[in-house]
């Protein structure tokens, strides 16, 4: 396969980043159009690449091949261990190329109009370019360290974009929170990488997977027999790598940054915090899936538990939130939880790998309808100048096209046939059903709750209170054409992408297989979705007192959910105690040990009154005391203590 298009796909957004970053001010009105055109070329290239891969040259003897069209040795530690920069092509990376470029193109298009009039219009597009470049490079990475580099770069562009309105304190706070939480998770990821690289003596994905899955491989035997705190080195490595994914994909318990990240401009939320960056964690697990599934299924159980917990927790919280973007944020978390546990229920082998395909399928369809929901929410927020759903209501006549597209997205995410979400969810549920029935029941429940909160949002925005606000801002009816175009195109994707026979393209081992709809199995999921929808219709179709009465009846659960199960508060508390944990002992050392030894040397009266003192008192003889004490302690510990 020719390597040129693969290099061009990430390079074009990067050019857009450089161009607008350097000459943005001069180009101002044209900035958005230039960025969008570059993005369009990149999208066209990735579509053609995908066509070539899936239909022309990717399949050899019925198996989709993993190709590396470009490999460049970048840093060499030793002849056997080096960091390369390369491009890896396989079904999931090609699929991600489509998702990232298409959604990014739509967001570019939409932002031309949405961000109009912003002072830093050009910077916005240049950040978008940087983000898209890093995300594409992440997806194409051929080795685990390269993925880490772009993983960080994605985090940095996300940091820049969340804090885009940097004059708002809340935006600054949110961007810092997101950065710190994900950085913390990334440290786990980095240690995981080091462990895997140490065990497999390589960073290259193909070699790493080969060495850690082949049953007779000495690397695998060493990795699974070395143990630390009761788990093998391999398990530790995989769990720590997964921890990176948990942070990036906002899974429980590291999800607290995602709702706050909604402080960023809405198109950013659509691109980064709904469709692309947050699924990087899922992508990472999928990338290493053979190692997980063949060598360490226990780690997959963890993936499943974390996934299903996040799915149901986020769904419950979403039911009571009143900020439209926060509801969507929790719904994103819940859907990514779906993808995670779907990977968690997959195993290696022809008959048990459906979960893998289903997860990728859901990732694909979710990108369309979730991006659409966010972009539509942007139109609505522009219209009513508030994020609170209480300020909305009866908007269906004022925003007819937004209304229809939003409805399509809601139907899709709720899993109503024949929209895309139905197909992907149904596959996930089927795979889960065959693996573990109680997880299946939880997933089914989540699916019902999903339908409920999405339609709660829908009815609240477009129906509920009678049509109002017609007089004010009469000019402000429907959004501009480019924004609507983006909405309509995405709605097309959300409606139709479910009909793609996904299992013929994407599977864990590259061998296509067929799936068919099981009509009898579909009854339960559809019924659950319809129940949720119906309940929302009953409560929120028009203004009434029923929601309040129900909230009153289940008061405890309601407050729990409204306060997001107090997880943020819990972290704040832990944070404070850590702070105290550090501050108190060091103050104690200052007071007792340092001042104590000062007392010894007879200077007590002088210094005791001066309160907390540092270990450095400024007294030279005391420094000498510590110096000698240090030598003696070291000598005793090293010579006798450690043998």
């Amino acid at each position: 396969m020719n390597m040129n298009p693969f290099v061009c796909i990430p390079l074009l957004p990067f050019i857009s980043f450089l161009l607008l970053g350097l000459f943005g001010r001069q180009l101002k009105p044209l900035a958005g159009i230039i960025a969008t055109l570059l993005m369009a070329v990149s999208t066209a290239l990735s579509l053609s690449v995908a066509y070539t891969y899936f239909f022309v040259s990717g399949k050899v003897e019925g198996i989709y091949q993993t190709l590396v069209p470009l490999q460049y040795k970048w840093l060499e530690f030793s002849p056997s261990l080096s960091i390369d920069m390369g491009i890896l092509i396989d079904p999931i990376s090609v699929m991600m190329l489509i998702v990232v470029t298409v959604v990014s193109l739509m967001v570019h298009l939409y932002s031309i109009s949405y961000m109009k009039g912003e002072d830093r219009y050009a910077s916005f597009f240049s950040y978008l370019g940087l983000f898209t470049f890093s995300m594409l490079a992440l997806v194409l990475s051929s080795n685990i360290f390269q993925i880490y580099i772009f993983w960080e770069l994605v985090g940095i562009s996300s940091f820049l974009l969340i804090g885009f309105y940097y004059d708002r304190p809340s935006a600054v706070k949110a961007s810092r929170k997101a950065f710190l939480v994900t950085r913390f998770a990334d440290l786990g990821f980095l240690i995981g990488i080091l462990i895997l690289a140490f065990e497999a003596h390589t960073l290259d994905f193909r070699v790493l997977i080969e060495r850690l899955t082949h049953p007779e491989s000495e690397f695998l035997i060493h990795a699974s027999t070395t143990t630390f705190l009761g788990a093998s080195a391999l398990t530790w490595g995989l769990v720590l790598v997964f921890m990176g994914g948990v942070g990036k994909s906002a899974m429980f318990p590291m999800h607290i940054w995602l709702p706050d990240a909604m402080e960023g401009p809405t198109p950013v939320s659509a691109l980064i915090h709904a469709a692309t960056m947050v699924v990087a964690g899922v992508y990472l697990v999928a990338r290493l899936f053979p190692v997980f599934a063949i060598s360490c299924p226990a780690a997959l159980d963890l993936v499943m538990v974390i996934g299903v917990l996040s799915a149901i927790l986020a769904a419950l919280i979403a039911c009571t939130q009143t900020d439209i973007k926060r509801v969507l944020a929790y719904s994103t978390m819940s859907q990514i939880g779906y993808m995670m546990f779907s990977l968690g229920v997959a195993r290696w082998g022809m008959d048990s790998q459906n979960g893998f395909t289903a997860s990728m399928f859901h990732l694909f369809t979710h990108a369309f309808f979730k991006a659409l929901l966010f972009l539509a929410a942007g139109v609505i927020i522009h219209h009513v100048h508030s994020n609170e759903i209480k300020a909305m209501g009866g908007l269906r006549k004022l925003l007819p096209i937004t209304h229809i597209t939003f409805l399509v997205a809601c139907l899709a995410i709720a899993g109503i046939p024949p929209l895309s979400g139905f197909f992907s969810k149904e596959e996930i549920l089927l795979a889960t059903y065959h693996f573990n029935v109680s997880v299946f029941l939880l997933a089914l429940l989540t699916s019902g709750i999903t339908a409920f909160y999405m339609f709660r949002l829908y009815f609240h925005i477009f129906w509920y209170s009678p049509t109002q606000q017609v007089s004010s801002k009469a000019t402000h009816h429907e959004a501009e054409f480019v924004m609507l175009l983006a909405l309509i195109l995405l709605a097309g994707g959300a409606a139709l992408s479910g009909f793609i026979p996904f299992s013929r393209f994407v599977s864990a081992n590259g061998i296509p297989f067929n799936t068919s709809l099981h009509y009898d199995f579909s009854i339960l999921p559809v019924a659950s979705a319809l129940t949720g929808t119906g309940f929302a219709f009953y409560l929120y179709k028009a203004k009434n007192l029923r929601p309040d009465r129900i909230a009153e009846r289940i008061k405890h659960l309601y407050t729990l959910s409204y306060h997001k199960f107090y997880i943020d508060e819990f972290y704040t508390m832990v944070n404070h105690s850590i702070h105290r944990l550090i501050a108190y002992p060091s103050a104690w050392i200052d007071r007792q040990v340092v001042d104590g030894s000062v007392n010894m040397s007879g200077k007590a009266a002088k210094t005791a009154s001066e309160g907390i003192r540092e270990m450095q008192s400024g007294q030279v003889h005391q420094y000498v005391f510590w110096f000698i004490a240090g030598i003696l302690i070291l000598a005793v510990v090293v010579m006798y203590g450690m043998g």
Partner: protein
Amino acid sequence: MNSLLLLKHELLLTALLLIFILIKLLKEISNHQFFLITCVLLAVNFLAGFFGNSYGSVFGNMFHTNEFISIQKNILNLATLLIVLSSWSWLKHHHHVPEFFILLLTTLLGMFFMLSSGNFLMFYLSLELATIPLAALCNFDLEKKQSSEAGMKMILLSALASAVLLLGISFIYGTTGTISFTELSFNLTGHPLQVFGFILVFAGFAFKLSVIPFHLWTADVYEGSPVAITAYLSVVSKGAMVFIFTTILYTVFRQIENTGYNTLFITAVVTMTIGNLFAIRQQNLKRFLAFSSIAQVGFILVGLSGYNQLGISSATYFIFIYVFSNLAAFAVVGLISAASGKENINDYRGLAKTNPSLAWIMALSLFSLAGIPPTAGFFGKFFLLAAGAGKGNFVLITIAALNIVLSLYYYLRVIRVMFMDQHDSPIPNIKCDKAFNTAAVIFIAGILIAGIWDYPFQIINTLAPYIFTAY
């Protein structure tokens, strides 16, 4: 002739020192010309370091050199040049400019000899040559009491450290009968007296490197000294000590690797953690940088504890990067301190509004110190951790990783103060001179390029095995 070429760095410096002393007596040259001559010579010396390097030894193995040592000298040379450039705005108002340069170049000469020393006697002599002028330099803010205090503490405590070091050397000499590095590397047996001798020698090094608990002089001396000297202490002096410590640890003491490993493990953990905890509490930027540099040394010890080739190259590479990131921070602090006398973190509120370029240089260097990609500091830390992981001690790596998070907290705090906080009377706009701008460009280029381009690391990594050539 050929053997004299091995001494080219040292000969150039010595020649210039003699010339300086002569023209100082003749008083025929202005301060600015002194400055220019020093810069040119350091630049020439730096460039000369790229050509005609070879290995060999002179003076009966007292002095030896090879291509790796040449690189290390070049790094120190570059750092000194950058310090001279970035501190000129402070120095030009000083009354004793020629003395400053003479003392500075003398310590550099001492460090060059130290890096090339082939036995403990030579090592000790050059160490003193490097230390004593430095104590005088600490005292260079002549009208400030704090500065005199810093000089005094430096000389007293250095004397203590030297005494301990000599005691350690004498134990080792007593049990083996030799002070030659080459012979020692074969003759050490792990006798308890040798182990204790190693710990004493280590304590001498630890003092210079500010390893906890031998670090107590650091904060006082850093705070009291002129900023240029603080920068010199924390980068050049410390860098030279890291280089020679690596060599001695990996060659002379290679027979007692286990003791070395245990010592490094304990002190690395303590140094990183306590250094970070203290750095969190500091208000004065110079003290803050002092403690953060203590924590950074802890990371270097983590890398060295790997006892592999990557350990050597990662420590050297880290110093190389540290030259840019830490000196950039000190340059900004020095410029602001010289112009406004302000050194506290809270004084920096609103700096980004009045002095955006200074604030950005500072932010970039703090990012690099914190190890955030794509700045150079990330790879510096990464290689150290990777080297430390070589022994499979993941407890140490985990503690190091947690410390990175901890350090992130206080580095970001300074950035927040500069960019987000408001101040009623922020530091007024400061005009930078040409020398500072030149240095700033090199800092930024260094931080960004070393974060992307792997060539420097490759060079260092290929040459690292040279430290074993003489043995």
